[in-house]
């Protein structure tokens, strides 16, 4: 059971990290819109006809949009 003296402090450390990550996520606004991302993932944003994507494929200036 001596391993517990190592594992429990380790779990505390992991928990500390988890809280830090969660705080960061809240601060960066990831919890402000809980509905949008669920819809957003269904849409194709990599259609080459979208001007922004065209830029990524062959960079050009003075876009027509």
């Amino acid at each position, binding site marked *: 059971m001596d391993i*517990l003296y190592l594992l429990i402090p380790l*779990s505390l450390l992991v928990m500390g990290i988890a809280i830090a990550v969660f705080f960061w996520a809240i601060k960066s606004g990831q919890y402000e819109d809980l509905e949008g991302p669920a*819809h957003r993932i269904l849409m194709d944003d990599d*259609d080459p006809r979208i001007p922004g994507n065209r830029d990524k494929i062959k960079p050009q*200036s003075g876009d027509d949009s």
Partner: protein
Amino acid sequence: MLPHMSYSQSQRLQSHSSEQNMTQENKQSCFHCGLPIPSGSAYCVNINGNDEPMCCAGCEAVARAIVENGLTDFYQYRSEKTDQARVLVPDELRELELYDRADLQKGFVRETGEHTREASLILEGIVCAACIWLNEQHVKALPGVEDFQVNYSTHRARVIWDNDVINLSQILEAIQAIGYQAHPFDVGRQEQVFKQEKSLAMRRLAVAGLGMMQVMMLAVALYAGAYEGMSDQLKSFLRWVSLLLTTPVVLYSARPFFERAWKDLKRRQAGMDVPVALAIGGAFLASAWATIRGVGDVYFDSVNMFTFFLLTGRYLEMAARHRAGQAAEELVKLLPATATRLEDNEQVRVSVAELTAADRVLIKPGETVPADGVVLEGSSLVDESLLTGESLPLPRKPGDALVGGTVNADSPLVMQVNKVGEDTVLSAIVRLLDRAQTEKPSLARLADKVAGWFVLVLLLLAGLVALWWWQHSPQEAFRVTLSILVVTCPCALSLATPATLSTATGALTRLGVLTTRGHALESLAKVTRLIFDKTGTLTEGRLQLSGVQIPDADASAGRDELISMAAALERSSEHPVAMAFLQAVEGRSVSAAQIKSVPGEGIEGLIEGRIVRLGNPDFVATLVASPVPEVTLDQQQTIVFLGVENTWLGIFSLADKLRVGATDTISSLHALGIQTELLSGDQPGVVETMARQAGISVYQASCSPQDKLQRIQALQARGEIVGMVGDGVNDAPVLAAAQISIAMGSGTQLAQASADMVLLSEQLPHLVIAARVARKTRQVIQQNLAWAVLYNLLALPLAAMGLIAPWMAAIGMSLSSLIVVVNALRLRKLPGAAG
């Protein structure tokens, strides 16, 4: 303007709704907005290889912009038809450029870097998730836009752009090009507060949640250790770790409970935070002391669980409150951002915030009045629909008062500002709205009051029990008292109402029925009589051609040709009568030239070399120069005459139609035991016909708002709970007098803001669903309250006898709260409209 239209009719008719295409399936509808296409129009855009028809130049331009930017997926993904688009006039584009001025940007733009700026926008016209995708893709593709994100729940966007590459006005213009309206807005103080409150609550919840998980695990080990045997050293270690984990939970997560309990004590009140704070604080201190001394029991698990569940309840309540608060913010954007100030007869464009009392301001036609004031020069028609619901513009001459937020419809006005900012009527309304939204339903108030007494009694009882145990078995006294405090926590009692209400309002919102007031569901559950307004509520509020009479049998023109001629004359008119003709055209289209409209009389034009008049009998008779023929059509309807020199060509009757599902709705309401009634300002014949069609037996025609008010008060005097369903607030006192007012989604913005509920979906059957949900909500609240009281009555004696350990108490209390919440969640499933 054509005759035979009552004022109220003509105003309601102007609001079009998207369900039009459902009722007009035989006709082609616009691919973009779904409105029927007037025949003869040739707007069309090639989308994914098909030529799709468009109803107007606005939709065509928008659809073209979407195609050109490779965003046609929008049409595949959208789940609702978009609003009809408008073509922007150059003036409006110039107006947008004002947003580039640095002094104006002060209000809503933040500088985030050397060139980069950030602003918040309210987006109008968003109907589904695809709209958001479309906006994001389109705007992000603009050179210079660094980030653009739309919040799905609030329809607000945040844009970050490089001011050296692109201007804010260009971004706004790009959004308008795809058919949406964006208004920059000042992220209000309230919104900032909401955001902070929410993130703080979430952090507290996270700490409590993670803390609880860890401590519960250790607690299981400690309990198991107590049976199986565990070395004292390990036991002490686990206790210390628990103490370490619980400390932040108590000091950080549970802090609001201590703060509020302290506030309650200072005001000499016993709120439910007092026993909560006592239980958490007492249990923690006793456990910490036991840990440090190494003897006695620890209750860290109870402390954590208790804190976490209470915080969860508070969080849900807060979320519901925030949602309601946002509606009020939307109203603020009604005031324009800029105004034309007259300084020594020079026109200077200034931001509205700079206006002060006694400034002279020029309001051009089509502009919004920027502040409250008095007309100095000019006379015009002012549209006050926003405030009064009376959509027909009212004449305003020098000396008359102008209200900020209303729209100058006719000719230029010079006004003297006398109230700005917080003092304006609009701000007062927003404040009223705020207050109304913070109103708690009386059931919740009752629960709070009960909880207050309950807590007081509880504390006394706990004290007595502690005293008794202290005298008989001092070592047990603390454990028993703690159990009492935890097990009888009144949180189930105070969770019962908010959890239920927020679930029910959430479910209804998804359906398109918006609840704007706390008391709405409660009142709706008790309603005994629903009073309907006619035009725009029970009916579609749109005139449709119902009959054609050809007085001269020898006339060469047939039915279709007559309609085409009428439509040709009305082509450029926005009048509801015009819409009826444009929709009815089936034959070949003709074109009219030299169109002249005579307000209040009719319209004249040149068709195929002949002068044709459409309008009231006198107006047409002066051209025809023969007696008005006898009308065989239903005289109750709107009658319009068409004639050329020497000949009466045709007589048309136009009528409004019942909404889809109106009859079913009325019979379902009757089945629920709710009486229905129709009160209308319209003529008796029309009202009678509509009432009979809908199945309403009680009706009253030619009602003035005063009559309606008296009727409602008479009903209320008989003890009835009266609900009013209307589409505007042209009779504001009536809506105010009704215990619950429901506005249609097409009604004026203010009507919606002041109504208790808004039927955004415009589907009458949803009223029935709302009534069912309201009744079920009331039931669930009562069940919840009954359960909470019963639970406490059972648990209190057991705890007082010392039969309940603190950990059992914590589980019991959490379970009782959980049952309340789960019971409330049953409301997520909506009942059907029928049956």
